């Protein structure tokens, strides 16, 4: 499980470099994501464009990361592939997270 990150003003973009967020890596993913996000306040965008599969463990890890944020941070998602989008829509987590079709769209969006 690998994450990389870059600053794309005004957002901090964290890219998942692996193609599955499942039970095998969910805890590791959650810890890595928290570590990437913790030092930086403001908007974070999680780039899931490389991810083809997320199960309930992976979903839970993403939710957990959001719940652990400070008040001066937000987490949005971008680049959900169809199978992953389905997991979010089935659980109606797409009403809880702001989801962009691409990172670029997310970076330029006004999120109020």
């Amino acid at each position: 499980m690998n994450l990389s990150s870059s600053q794309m003003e005004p957002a901090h973009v964290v890219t998942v470099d692996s193609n599955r967020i499942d039970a095998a890596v969910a805890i590791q993913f959650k810890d890595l994501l928290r570590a990437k996000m913790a030092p930086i306040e403001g908007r974070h965008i999680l780039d899931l464009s490389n991810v083809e599969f997320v199960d309930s463990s992976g979903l839970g890890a993403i939710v957990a990361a959001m719940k652990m944020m400070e008040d001066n941070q937000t987490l949005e998602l971008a680049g959900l592939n169809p199978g992953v989008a389905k997991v979010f829509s089935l659980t109606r987590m797409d009403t809880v997270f702001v989801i962009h079709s691409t990172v670029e769209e997310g970076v330029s969006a006004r999120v109020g």
Partner: protein
Amino acid sequence: MRMLDVSNGFDMNVILLDFEFDSDFISVREAVISARDALIHRQIGCEHVTKIELAVAEALNNVVEHAYKETCNGMICMKVEQSGKSIIVSVMDHGLPFPSDKLSVNEPVHAGVALSDIPEGGFGWYFIRTMAENVNHRRSKDGINHLQMEFRV
């Protein structure tokens, strides 16, 4: 020359996958990918493959977590068959029985829910029941849990 019907007199059952693996999350991942690849090879449509892949992953995760309590101390058997317009996935383990009370199932969240109230888990059975047309489970007298999921494809 006519093909012999050997099962239910109408469609033949074709076994796509039938194997045994260790009950840990890494082995589960490999098993899920094997099931997915077998379905793709069989030219099952990708939307169906996606839904089966998710349900299978959830079912196998449940075995690791609940039947074997993550002790990595047992085997899981999985069979994937095609029967006419259905894919049937059978999962067997010799771990703890299904709980007799209602299985913990988290339903979808609703808009406006407080952040602290959003569940981080428990969606597994909900996914299985949503993706599969039929789900049944039983425990045989010799202490084997049998889960069967049927998917229309």
